[in-house]
């Protein structure tokens, strides 16, 4: 591949510093007096986050308030960050349910595989980003915390409807 030598061949009459400075000053002044500012005034204004935003998790519940999870073990298996801890249990009628269901949000990489793999549409990643806590251990969300979350959940990408219409 040939090397391209870039030669600065602007004619000397066009090379100016003072006049270029003046036009630059005009440009910055125009931006300064322009009332349109791009900053979002955060606590008052919020950004519309994407319907496919993947944030902290939420466990959906059935009508009687129980988690939809049947402790099949697919989500801890698929999880690439190994952040889901699941201990399955079974009641007298043979229904499986999670005894322990914990997600370590610090380990989570928010790939959304758990939502994608879940046969019961129980675990979801949420459209939510305000996750501040006072201590590190509060970032391990247990089943109670996951079912108590109320924020909207992520709409997964559908190959049949790639633009989400």
């Amino acid at each position: 591949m040939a090397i391209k030598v870039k030669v600065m061949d602007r004619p000397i009459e066009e090379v100016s510093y003072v006049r270029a400075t003046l036009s630059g000053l005009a440009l910055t002044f125009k931006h300064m007096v322009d009332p349109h500012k791009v900053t979002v005034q955060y606590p008052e204004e919020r950004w519309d986050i994407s319907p496919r935003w993947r944030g902290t998790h939420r466990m959906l519940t059935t009508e009687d308030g129980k988690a939809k999870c049947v402790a099949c073990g697919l989500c801890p298996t698929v999880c690439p960050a190994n952040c889901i801890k699941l201990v399955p249990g079974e009641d007298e009628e043979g229904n499986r349910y999670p005894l322990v269901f914990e997600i370590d949000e610090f380990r989570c990489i928010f790939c959304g595989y758990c939502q994608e793999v879940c046969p019961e549409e129980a675990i979801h990643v949420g459209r939510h980003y305000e996750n501040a806590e006072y201590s590190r251990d509060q970032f391990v969300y247990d089943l109670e915390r996951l079912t108590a979350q109320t924020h909207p959940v992520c709409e997964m990408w559908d190959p049949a409807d790639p633009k989400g219409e």
Partner: protein
Amino acid sequence: MHLIPSLLQAVVEPLPVSTGIFVVFSLLKLIVIFTIYMVGIAYSTFAERRISAWIQDRHGPNRVGPWGLFQVLADGVKNFMKEETYPGEANTVLFVLAPALAFVPAMITWAVIPFAAPWGSPWGRIDMVVADLPVGFLFTLAISSLGVYGLTLAGWASNNKYALLGGLRASAQMISYEIALGMATVCVLLVSGNAHLTEIIQQQSTSGWNVLILSVACFIFLVASFAETNRVPFDLPEAEAELIAGYHTEYSAMKFSMFPISEYANMITAGAMISTLFFGGWDIPFTHWDNIPPYTGLKVLATFGMFAAKVMFFMFFFIWIRWTLPRFRYDQLMSLGWKFMLPSALAYVTVVASTILGLDAAGIARGSWAYLGIMLALNLVLVVLMFFVLDRGRIISPASSRLNRRQVNQLKAVAPALSDLSGKGV
């Protein structure tokens, strides 16, 4: 036994009442100027942040208080509360002294700058300047060159290679541009024939502002004061891309804060000097109302407002330039200072001196319309020459050495051959 009362009497009694008035009013002026100056510095940092934000289509600090006006208080509290660190091998005495050395000269300069019309008070005429030095102009030059010690010592005492490089750059840059700065102000002395700042202002109020008849000197003074205050595009001593933070790399908390404070202090002082030397100081243009007695309190306030407006305009100009221009390379800085600013300042002094000499010989009175017209025309010609003829890749070259047409053609002739060779070889 009676020694102490008699001594006291000896000290107190010979003092006339006018001395007492002088002392009282000097103290008052000191307090007022100091307060306004410090508040001005604090709010310049705020103005810098807001204006930079607006230029970048942002809002800037607008949360603390109405329009964010209390942000400076929050900054001050933060800086006082922070932990101060000392580098292990630093020279502690100089390390502590340097921030003060950077700040004090900028402040002392204000002692001789007249900030308003004199006040004809019931106790006699009070000049609105803290110390009305007859050599005030030389005093400002002498004091402002001391500012370089703070920066250089900060860099040296930190025992840090980046800080040292920043300090060295600061000293080289400030000394280089001081020469052009001094040369530019020689013209003011030529025109006014006096080194007394009050007289320089009086001369401008009667015969037009110096910026009209000394435009090139004003331009050189303005550019040199950017270099003196280490502002973009001449902030080589800080140059965060190359030197972390330059001479104040090792500083923290309030000692660090002293450097920005001294930078803004220097900016205000530079703005006040430009206003005084070239823009008529406290003179209100297009009227002689403010220059003639009786000097009432209203005139003092009006002229002070005018002076403050001029200084604030230059503060805004400093900030505006900072968010417009990129930083110079070090060789560009030096070649601009030594190869352009200094020769053009020298040439300009020669031209102005010979013109004034010629006009005096021709019998045209100083301050007359003919004199002003000739000086104005001369400056117009020189400005056009400077901005449209000299400013062709010569003031600042985009590369270290500018190619002329012949060199470009030579390169173009060689370039295809070079690319062919490399294509075959590799």
